[in-house]
């Protein structure tokens, strides 16, 4: 077992910030290469005529999942040391809906807005300022929303634990879901092509 590198002490706290920065740059680079620096491309997702967001994100999930599975199978990665975000299902449902509304209205999600700002998009910059203000507002209002923040706490859970299905079968099921999803998405895109295109602005 040699990974996760940070948990096993391959580098310290300061170096971990540099690593995080480099990974962040890489993340932004690929968001931009996928076309996600454009709000029009992102919002097409909700008009069902360009499901690139769904495809790219699900591809990333499947790639990471297979990578983690095989690295751990090969004895390189200790999965028990990989940090898992605890589940607060009520808080996360409410937060997810809020993020979705913000995504449709603002045209970006947090990561893509930063990528858009980096390429000089004014709407991206406005979005970043908006989410900075929102973060500050949340911090100030925290005593009021504290109850919601931890609502639905069921601890750290994984699908194999919750469903009682072996890890490998879940992996295969997610791959099947993804490939099925890609085929379905392509079919939907063809169906919706040319319909309900967001108004083209002069750019």
């Amino acid at each position, binding site marked *: *077992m040699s990974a996760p590198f940070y*948990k*096993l*002490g391959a580098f*310290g706290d300061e170096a971990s910030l540099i690593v995080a920065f480099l990974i962040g740059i890489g993340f932004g680079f690929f968001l931009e290469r996928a076309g996600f620096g454009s709000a029009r491309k992102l919002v097409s997702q909700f008009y069902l005529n360009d499901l690139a967001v769904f495809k790219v994100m699900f591809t990333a999930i*499947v790639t990471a999942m*297979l990578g983690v*599975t*095989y690295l*751990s*199978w090969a*004895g390189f990665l*200790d*999965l*028990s*040391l990989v940090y898992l975000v605890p589940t607060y299902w009520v808080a996360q449902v409410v937060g997810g809906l809020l993020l979705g509304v913000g995504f449709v209205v603002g045209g970006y999600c947090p990561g893509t807005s930063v990528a858009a700002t980096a390429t000089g998009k004014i709407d991206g910059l406005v979005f970043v300022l908006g989410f900075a203000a929102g973060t500050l507002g949340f911090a100030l209002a925290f005593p009021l929303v504290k109850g919601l923040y931890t609502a639905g706490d069921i601890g750290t859970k994984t699908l194999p634990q919750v469903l009682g299905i*072996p*890890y*490998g*079968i879940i*992996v*295969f099921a*997610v*791959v*099947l879901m*993804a*490939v099925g999803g*890609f085929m379905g998405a392509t079919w939907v895109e063809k169906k919706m092509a040319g319909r309900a295109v967001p108004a083209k602005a002069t750019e």
Partner: protein
Amino acid sequence: MRVLPKLTLNQRLGVLALALGALAVFANVAPGHTVTVNAKELLTSVARAEDHVTPAELAAWIIEGRADYRLVDIRNEKAFAEYHIPTAENVPLATVTDGALGRTDRIVLYGDGGIHAAQAWMVLKGKGYTQVYTLLEGLDAWKDEVLFPVMPQSPTPEEKARFERAAQVAKFFGGQPRAAAAPGSEPMALPTQAAAPGVAPPTLPAGAATGPKKKREGC
């Protein structure tokens, strides 16, 4: 195989993902519960007394407010609730490798005696935790040496000075120094967790924990 060249890149990647996904059904990703120990290294560090801290050292760390280590009580929750050394956190023995402790954390383990902590120390060392220590002789020694220190019979001036310092530390932790021991005397009551409010932290001379030193003026 003739079909493959006709597929687009995306379709080929899809096929690859399906193949890897199907093979993953057989993957065994359960975290390893076996450990490999370097026997010589472990034995050497035990022989050099690099595997433990003494109760006096730990008491000095707590009084100094040091925050560069984690004090871990490996007893069960009930025992922990009844009494634990101030600043300790509870990670029961069976769960020490479950992720609550970081491999690069400086960890001081203690149980009732010295044995459970030493066993956990062994396992953690084998799992690659780099800075693990035990509290020498565990909570028993903590009680005897820190909470309820005993004034030796007919002490030398040096022993007396040492006892006075220990008495100060004992009061800080809510304990009670004892006069010359009557063996088999009734057990002392353990302090409650809000131990001794209002007792000012004793001023420890530098290196107080490392051994007897001459008493300083005004100490």
